[in-house]
């Protein structure tokens, strides 16, 4: 079914998996909370540091020239002056160092003897310092999946970035709660593979990390960067894939996109074009549009912006050409424009249309002296940005002559990729002089070797037998963020383990699918829910209803939910009274039908008792009371 053979196009994929650790504190300060509500704000700007060569990374320079004012949201419990970059980092969390070493050892990676914390320059605001603190803890090793082995390049320990909350033209907004949370990065070597296999590799690595029981679980705690290349193309990095089940789709899309860029390169050469054909000065054609009715252009003209046209020699027909679904060169160019702050881009293959008339197109073509084979771009926005964008777009066309350009892309929710920014130059890294090197003794390594977890598969089998779970349920609960509370409840209550596991996986998933935010469900809530059940205060039938009320935020806790539904369980005594009352009220029916009246009576009792008591109990009490009544009658 695939549109390509992975081997024929030379598909190579390298995975970098970033996994949050559930250490007691952050990596370089002793903040304990990794998620928070925000009570303060702060504004900062970052400027690129100058290197010895006087050069600044073009992407970094562009970020700076945007004159971005970054707003940080500050939580009281989740961040301190370290996150604000108003205090030097404290010593490194040794728990995090040990955990990352254990993960490395589980992958047969060689621990580094002396760890050196580095600063990696990042000036998009995601780190208040302007750099990410990161260190390599071990090198080499291999990941074994059920049917292959993938070499490990290195294991890194690093601080997580601040949480992006909003991004608009001149403002960017981050939450500081996530900044500084320890992350382990496992970088796998690029291997020749298939999209499906990559997904399996990612699952295997995720499971290996979870088997340590030292990593965070659940959505957002694991992210992957995927490096994808094909023959004759440069490496494209797709950054921040959060859903593993999208990996296969993303790699399929990216392979097709890259393949069509290679084909485009041949087409450009066939048309007799050379990169130097794309160094044109844009023309200001704002005057041509003064009477235009196009709403987009109107807005532009109102705000005193400009419309520029750029000649694209012999590119007619290429911009809209779609070899594979959703892969068009015109879109690649629009993405570049957007990076430089220009959202209004139209090209000659799509106009006339979009409110631009054929007369206007004719005028543009005249003004630019175009012949029929030539195409052009229309860009609208501020003058300064237009010049930069026009230059960058033409550079992008020039790089099409070598096929696939190296760039950083992001995943879309439907499994495609979009341009984010050019691939930064070689990483700008220098030592974090605020933190002395950390010696890893052979004694410590030997100690940690004893903590290498048993394989995931072994742990699942143990789960199945210890808690009497189905394999599916065992995997689901083991991989979920509720694993610890599950074990606690399964070991300390009389509630069947399978009920706890099913509730925490299937029921919660169903509620999540129904659009409820299941992340607000805390271990404390879960504990109180099952203790209440264990004490006979509610029946298991009431669980979904209680959870729903909590997740809808209609109540704050389990007690309030019970009160709200009027769900206090029937004590045996009350149930007994209820059964007696129903029997008394239905004397005629009982006289007439005898024991056959049971199902009718059962229905009546349950309409009152549902959710407050187990049906089996009702049935047995009703049966014995009914029998008593009938035998009395017979006497």
């Amino acid at each position, binding site marked *: 079914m695939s549109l390509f053979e992975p081997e024929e196009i030379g598909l190579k994929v390298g995975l970098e998996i970033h996994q949050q650790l559930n250490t007691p504190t952050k990596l370089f300060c002793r903040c304990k909370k990794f998620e928070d509500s925000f009570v303060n704000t*702060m*504004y900062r700007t970052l400027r690129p540091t100058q290197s010895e060569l006087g050069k600044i990374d073009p992407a970094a320079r562009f970020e700076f020239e945007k004159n971005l004012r970054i707003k940080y949201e500050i939580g009281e419990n989740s961040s301190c*002056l370290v996150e604000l970059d*108003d*205090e*030097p980092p404290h010593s490194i969390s040794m728990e995090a160092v040990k955990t990352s070493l254990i993960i490395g050892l589980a992958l047969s990676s060689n621990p580094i003897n002396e760890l050196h914390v580095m600063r990696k320059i990042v000036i998009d605001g995601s780190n208040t*310092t302007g750099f990410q603190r990161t260190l390599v803890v071990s090198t080499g090793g291999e990941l074994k999946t059920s049917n292959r082995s993938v070499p490990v390049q290195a294991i890194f320990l690093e601080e997580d970035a601040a949480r992006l909350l909003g991004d608009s033209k001149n403002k960017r907004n981050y939450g500081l709660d996530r900044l500084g949370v320890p992350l382990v990065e496992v970088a796998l070597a690029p291997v020749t593979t298939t999209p499906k296999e990559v997904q399996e590799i990612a699952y295997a690595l995720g499971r290996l990390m979870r088997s340590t029981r030292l990593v965070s679980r659940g959505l957002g705690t694991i992210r992957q960067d995927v490096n994808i290349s094909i023959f004759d193309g440069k490496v494209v990095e797709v950054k921040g894939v959060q859903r593993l089940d999208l990996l296969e789709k993303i790699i399929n899309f990216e392979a097709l996109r890259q393949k069509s860029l290679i084909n485009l390169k041949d087409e450009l050469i066939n048309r007799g074009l050379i990169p130097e054909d794309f160094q044109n000065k844009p023309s200001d054609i704002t005057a041509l549009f003064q009477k235009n009715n196009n709403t987009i252009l109107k807005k532009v003209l109102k705000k005193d912006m400009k419309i520029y046209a750029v000649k694209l020699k012999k590119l007619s027909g290429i911009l809209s050409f779609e070899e594979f679904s959703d892969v068009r060169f015109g879109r690649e160019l629009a993405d570049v424009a957007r990076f430089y702050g220009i959202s209004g881009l139209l090209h000659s293959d799509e106009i006339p249309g979009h409110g631009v008339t054929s007369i206007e197109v004719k005028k543009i073509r005249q003004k630019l002296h175009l012949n029929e084979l030539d195409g052009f771009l229309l860009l609208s926005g501020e003058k300064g940005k237009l010049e930069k964008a026009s230059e960058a777009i033409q550079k992008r066309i020039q790089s099409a002559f070598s096929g696939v350009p190296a760039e950083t892309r992001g995943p879309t929710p439907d499994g495609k990729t979009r341009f984010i920014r050019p691939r930064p130059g070689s990483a*700008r*890294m220098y030592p974090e002089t605020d933190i002395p090197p950390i*010696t890893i003794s052979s004694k410590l390594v030997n100690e940690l070797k004893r903590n290498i977890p048993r394989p995931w598969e072994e742990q699942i089998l143990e789960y199945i037998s210890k808690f009497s779970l189905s394999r599916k349920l065992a995997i689901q609960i083991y991989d979920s963020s509720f694993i610890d509370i599950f074990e606690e409840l399964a070991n300390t209550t009389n509630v069947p383990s399978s009920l706890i596991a099913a509730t925490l996986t299937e029921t919660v998933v169903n509620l999540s699918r129904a659009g409820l935010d299941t992340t607000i469900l805390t271990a404390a809530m879960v504990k109180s829910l099952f203790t209440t059940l264990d004490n006979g205060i509610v029946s298991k039938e009431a669980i979904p209803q209680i959870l729903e009320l909590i997740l809808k935020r209609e109540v704050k806790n389990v007690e309030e939910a019970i009160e709200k539904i009027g769900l206090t369980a029937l004590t045996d005594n009350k149930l007994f009274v209820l059964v007696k009352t129903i029997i008394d009220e239905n004397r005629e029916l009982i006289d007439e039908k005898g024991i056959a009246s049971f199902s009718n009576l059962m229905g009546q009792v349950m309409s009152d008792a549902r959710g407050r008591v187990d049906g089996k109990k009702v049935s047995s009490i009703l049966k014995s009371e009914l029998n008593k009544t009938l035998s009395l009658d017979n006497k």
Partner: protein
Amino acid sequence: MTDIQGYKGVSYNLLSKSKVSIGDFIDVKTNNGSIQGSLMPRYEYADDQHIVIKMSNGYNVGLRTKKIISIKLITKRSAPSFQPPKTPKLDPKLPKVAIIGTGGTIASRVDYRTGGVHPQFSTNELYAIVPEIGKYAQIHTKPLLNIYSEHINADHWNIIAEKTVKEITEGFDGIIIAHGTDTMGYTSAALSFALSNSPVPIILVGSQRSTDRPSSDAALNLIGAVASVTRIPFSGVYVAMHGSVNDSTVAIHRGTRVRKNHTSRRDAFQSIDVSPVAFFKDEKVEVLTEDLPLKNSSLQFKVRCQFEKDVALIKFYPSFNYKLIDHLVDSGYRGIVFEGTGLGHLGEDCYQSIDDAVKKGLLVGMTSQCIWGRVNLTVYDSGRDLLKIGVIPLGDMLPETALVKMMWALGNAQSGKEAEILMHENIAGEYLERSTFERRKKYEFI
């Protein structure tokens, strides 16, 4: 000859035997396989059991010498091709500002190959790194000293003061002094007394976060200082530092009323008991006061830059031993400033020692360890006793400012009596006449 900076002992021997130098690209064979990278310098305080290399992915790692089988040179280090920045075009219509360097880093370059951080101070460098300063003034940099501010002493105050006078006489419209933050408040007080009625404003500037990080506060502080030195209408000495934790406001503090009140926050500097003189925000300078002497006024510019080093600043505390005072007197000290408790009190077992000190001709002044507020030696008996002994109450003068002032007064006066008169005189706004309510809140600027 090998260059293996920072290495010693075992690691030094290993490297010199292998004939490799810092920056060389080498192959290190260990019993866990080979690692390639550039040899990095080692910090002096680190052990001699590891060598550090930068791998091609940019990461540094330390390799234990015990596990190293061999080190092979692959390529020698190549010399960096440094491109000096262009000479900027100065706008002749703008005021001329001199920036005197004393060691506070306001700009630097990072060498990503070795991790070295190189402070930059030439005019060209400064324009290249912080181009915004060119909007407000024609800048000329004047390197003077290169020392950490904790090593600055009264001799340096003298050197800085004389250099400032020289630049003022050469016609600069404003003087900026780049200074480390630790003792910047002391230097600003010293210059305030040494250069009273300066015809142009003098502003000290520093940074709380180092310039090798993109988040450094240095650039904004410098821009704020340059803008303010050209725009505030006053004579005098000031300190320009962040007005809040935001990168938006630079506060301009009076040189005698400013104090570093936090070890690391960028808004560590605060004006005590008074509002800052001005704020720089959104490219504008907002002046908040009128009651300061104007620049280029008819007031005589008095240069008195001598300082007496034998003056002590002593904080009183419960169980304080009066022998400390005796010791100072015996050592030939000429003055003592006390940080007394509350309104300016000391335990009574000190009285005799203080009486001896005063009789031997020492100046003894009283400030309060409360930082905010003024001393008053007439409210309680203990205060009145100290007054009677001859202790000089120093009003609401900051303890550090009072120390510097006494050093200056003793350094420039012909007699102890004249120095005492100088202590009472309000030379540079070190005394405030009024204690106004809750000005501290003004720091919550965004």
